[in-house]
């Protein structure tokens, strides 16, 4: 009898409806990650490198192909909709950013696979930039044994695939819980990858621990914010939250006490913001960037700097534009402040940096500020501009860090700026390419950086944020100083006698750098098609 009433009281849980086709780009990458783990367990050590690189590239290629197919089939425009019971949005921004992330990941995997830069191990095997055995204590016998026998941490590839999978989901997540899960899915592998440097392992591990601790801290904020917003809206789904905020939807009676409590909503929103601003590296949540960028293996730094920023800004756009447009009056002034602080602090602190990787880290902070101006625009131009900027910026970043891996001396990469003096005389081509990337960072016309900056500033100006644009232009001027200083150093200083050499990379890194340079020039000289594409993809589904 009681059993029967219970059964009547609890409605049956319906099986969730999953649109596998729309989710297939992510599934392909996660699939590749799982296959990679199996390969790690079953494939003999000497075949692992080739197998893992193959699996990773195949997974990414499949994912990119599926993204193109979905976009072609109209899922970016007319058929854009929510999938998986409203948890994932398959629309223009999702597909555009997922496309960018997979391309970035392809280039990153090429760099991870580079094995010609490090001297060969004792056993004569070619080795990559990662620790031979990550679990061995730095400086221990175990480490030396692993190094001489030519072991390699091929787990980097499945880790990368998990990270990429999380990043694909992050900008597409359409409810807070999915977003949080995606955040963790891509963050955890990144923490590990940061610790894998072959040289200066203590620095690398320190960076990983810092990143992990601070990342956990920021995740806690995000999670707390999530709970508070749920308390207000009774839902974690963005569209539902927006409707509750606007007052066009009612919530479950169970939450009647808390619903409508604006303090919950506002504090929750601010805390969610903290979590996302940490990931994009905005001031004052940027402190981890220089340390982590410097300590992590340089190919990982490039991947992280490019792809994380793309994913996190995508998520930020969706959160602010879909869930909280009704609170624009509350969050825009706050973001104004953050953007100004970020642009100014990033540019100013970079002026006195002496390490290339730290310099690029602060430059990425400043760029986070520039992109924020596009987010603040709160119009469709703003979305298009941010999408374009992210695509442009990520390839410049990848290229720049790839160049850093090539300038080496006996201790590995020579990242101290003084050692780059006169590089233009010794390796004019490499220095010229790096100069191109720096000019793109500085936003000089005919490079992608200019087009991107122009687009976000224009969107911000039309969105009524003119003072922000002025601050942006002024900090660009400050930033130009340190970019140009590096160019001057490379081309107009005399080379040092004991200066670093420029390693000749294999086709892998060569492709990465060339791709970065080509994208930088094409998006600078003939950006019309891509601007159009970004604008077309700028409709967020709700």
């Amino acid at each position: 009898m009681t059993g029967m009433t219970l059964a009547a009281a609890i409605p049956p849980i319906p099986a969730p409806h999953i649109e596998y086709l729309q989710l297939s780009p992510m599934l392909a990458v996660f699939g590749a990650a799982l296959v990679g783990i199996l390969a790690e367990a079953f494939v003999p050590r000497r075949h692992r490198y080739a197998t893992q690189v193959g699996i990773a590239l195949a997974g990414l290629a499949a994912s990119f192909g599926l993204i193109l197919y979905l976009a072609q089939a109209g899922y970016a425009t007319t058929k854009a909709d929510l999938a998986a019971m409203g948890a994932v949005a398959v629309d223009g921004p999702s597909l555009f950013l997922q496309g960018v992330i997979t391309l970035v990941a392809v280039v990153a995997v090429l760099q991870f696979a580079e094995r010609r830069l490090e001297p060969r191990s004792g056993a004569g095997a070619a080795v990559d930039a990662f620790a031979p055995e990550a679990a061995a204590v730095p400086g221990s016998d175990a480490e030396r044994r692993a190094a001489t026998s030519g072991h390699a941490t091929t787990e980097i590839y499945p880790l990368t695939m998990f990270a990429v999978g999380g990043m694909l989901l992050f900008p597409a997540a359409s409810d807070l819980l999915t977003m949080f899960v995606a955040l963790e899915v891509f963050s955890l592998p990144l923490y590990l990858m940061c610790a894998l440097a072959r040289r200066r392992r203590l620095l690398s591990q320190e960076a990983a621990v810092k990143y992990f601790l601070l990342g956990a801290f920021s995740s806690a904020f995000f999670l707390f914010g999530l709970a508070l917003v749920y308390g207000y809206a009774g839902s974690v789904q963005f569209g539902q939250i927006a409707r509750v905020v606007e007052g066009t939807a009612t919530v479950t009676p169970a939450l009647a006490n808390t619903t409508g409590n604006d303090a919950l909503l506002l504090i929750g929103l601010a805390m969610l913001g903290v979590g996302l601003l940490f990931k994009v590296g905005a001031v004052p949540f940027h402190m981890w960037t220089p340390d982590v960028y410097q300590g992590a293996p340089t190919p990982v730094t490039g991947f992280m700097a490019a792809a994380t920023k793309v994913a996190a800004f995508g998520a930020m756009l969706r959160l602010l534009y879909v869930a909280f447009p009704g609170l624009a009056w509350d969050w825009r002034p706050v973001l104004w402040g953050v953007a100004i602080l970020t642009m100014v602090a990033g540019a100013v602190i970079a002026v006195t940096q002496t390490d290339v990787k730290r310099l690029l880290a602060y430059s990425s902070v400043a760029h986070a500020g520039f992109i924020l101006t596009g987010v603040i625009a709160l119009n469709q131009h703003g979305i298009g501009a941010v999408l374009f900027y992210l695509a442009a910026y990520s390839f410049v970043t990848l290229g720049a860090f790839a160049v850093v891996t090539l300038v080496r001396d006996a201790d590995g990469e020579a990242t101290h700026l003084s050692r780059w003096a006169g590089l233009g005389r010794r390796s004019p081509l490499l220095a010229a390419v790096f100069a191109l990337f720096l000019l793109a960072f500085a936003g000089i016309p005919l490079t992608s950086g200019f087009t991107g900056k122009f687009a976000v500033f224009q969107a911000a100006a039309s969105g009524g944020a003119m003072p922000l644009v002025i601050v942006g232009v002024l900090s660009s001027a400050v930033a130009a100083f340190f970019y140009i200083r590096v160019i001057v150093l490379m081309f107009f200083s005399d080379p040092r006698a004991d200066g670093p050499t420029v390693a000749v990379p294999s086709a892998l890194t060569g492709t990465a750098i060339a791709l970065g340079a080509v994208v930088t020039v094409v998006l600078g000289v003939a950006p019309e098609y891509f601007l159009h594409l970004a604008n077309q993809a700028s409709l967020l589904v709700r």
Partner: protein
Amino acid sequence: MDNLIPVLVAVPLLGAALLLCGGRRLDRVGHLLGTLLAFASFGVGLALFFSMLGRATDQRPIHDHLFTWIPVNGFQAEVGFQLDQLSMTFVLLITGVGSLIHLYSIGYMAHDEKRRRFFGYLNLFLAAMLLLVLADNYLLLYVGWEGVGLASYLLIGFWQHKPSAATAAKKAFLVNRVGDVGLSIAVMLMFTTFGTFAFTPVFAHASQATQATLTGIGLMLLLAACGKSAQVPLQSWLGDAMEGPTPVSALIHAATMVTAGVYLITRSSAIFNLAPTAQLATVVVGAVTLLFGAIIGCAKDDIKKALAGSTMSQIGYMVLAAGLGPIGYVFAIMHLVTHGFFKAGLFLGAGSVMHGMNDEVDMRKYGGLRKYMPLTFVTFGLGYLAIIGFPGLSGFFSKDKIIEAAFAHGGTEGWILGTCAMVGAAVTAFYMTRVMLMTFFGERRWVDDAEGNQPHPHESPAVMGIPMVILAFGSVLAGGLFSINSSFVNWLSPVTGYEEGHSPLSTTEVTTGTMVVLVLGVGVAWLMYGRRPVPAVPPLGSLLTRAARRDLLQDDFNHVVLVSGGSHLTRFLVYLEGRGLDGLVNGIAALVGGTSGRVRRVQNGYVRSYALSMFGGALVLVATTLLMRAVA
């Protein structure tokens, strides 16, 4: 077929990229590759030309929009090409004469160790010049305009080991900069007035702009033309530009680039037609320069500088014609084309003479060369007859038309302009006869060069001879061909517009007049240089001669007014800057640097303090969000 237009530009651009980036691997074939690509571009030009001829007159102009460089609201920077009769004429001239000069350079630069780079620069020049004449908007035209300036700078200073060449290159660059500022201001004025850079809408809406704006745009365009085309007052660089290799002087500083100013004025006819003040300024500039250049040409003993003076003067004719409005545009361009033939031929002849005379340029050390260089003598002689306007040859048709149009301008102005043009024709006959006599006639006055080598004048190789012969044919025939049935007028008038001028003098009277002054100029020159031996050391000469030898004191003028004036101004500004501005700038730099250093200390590496700052940041963020609501 018609989407071949970008290929025209792309082919030489590819050549420049290959030759300049290709490295030593291409040293052995670089010159052949560069020449081949120039001819390929000419071939494409010819194909487009015949395709254009096959269409009805109103179908002839074609547009090819490539892409939008910066597509944002309110500012569209387009990259597109426009090929109409005017640009077609230039395309054929540039690629045709350009290819011949590439061919000639194979012989002329055979022993130069930087030969590959030379051909790379020549290709770069072709690409930039084609971009200039094919652009369908002023912004893209500006790109080509700066591109030819760059190529010109690189080629004048090609032998930069000579300090004189390096200086000349800098001088050309700086003087051109003044003109370029004019063009950029004109382009900006157009954008603020019409909201676009494209030719078609700008010309269509020109009549709606105020008179002051149109005059301003016209004068700024004229300033640009003065810089690029070496017109008074920005003429001083052309003589020094002769420091470049002779093929460069022939291509860039005689046939094509220096005529870009005439192209600019003709292209902007819709604006000039509505701005009488700018037109008046244009004819004054043209008339002054045509006399100015001619007088300089009379006094120079350096064969290339004499020809440079002549170039200045002939472009003066073109600018004068362009300033006359619809009665003159067609003839300006016609003279430009015929001049392209005969002046390039004359320069190549001069190069051939120098080639045989151990690079001697002083005509007082030539003499009697006609026996030693028959081919050069004949081709140079035909170019000479063409430029002085000998009946039946090219210059006769094109120059007489300009003189007639000048008279047809009407009123006192017309008489003044016509007389200037007529006097110019006499002086032209004089200085060109002088060049001819001093070089090819009279007794030999050769002297050993600095190393004691005796010159052994000899004919140049065929690779140099063939271009000279082809250009000589052009010098003889082009004018006649253009004039049969007014074919050139009919060809070009749909673009530039054409009105029959009403000259107070009939065509017969003008022709008779020019014949008289022609005989007069040749006669006087023969009396001075043909009948008497030419002294090896120049005589002191009159005050005017001495001034003309110093380029009519143009450098002295620039020095006193601009250089001294400028340095006084800068000294004053430096004083001001030291007192005020410098402190401000240094202060900002110190502020940024100091702040940077101080803020950097916050980044101490301890994760606990990072977490604290994050916590603080989160608190502030939450507080401000709440505060915003409270305030609102």
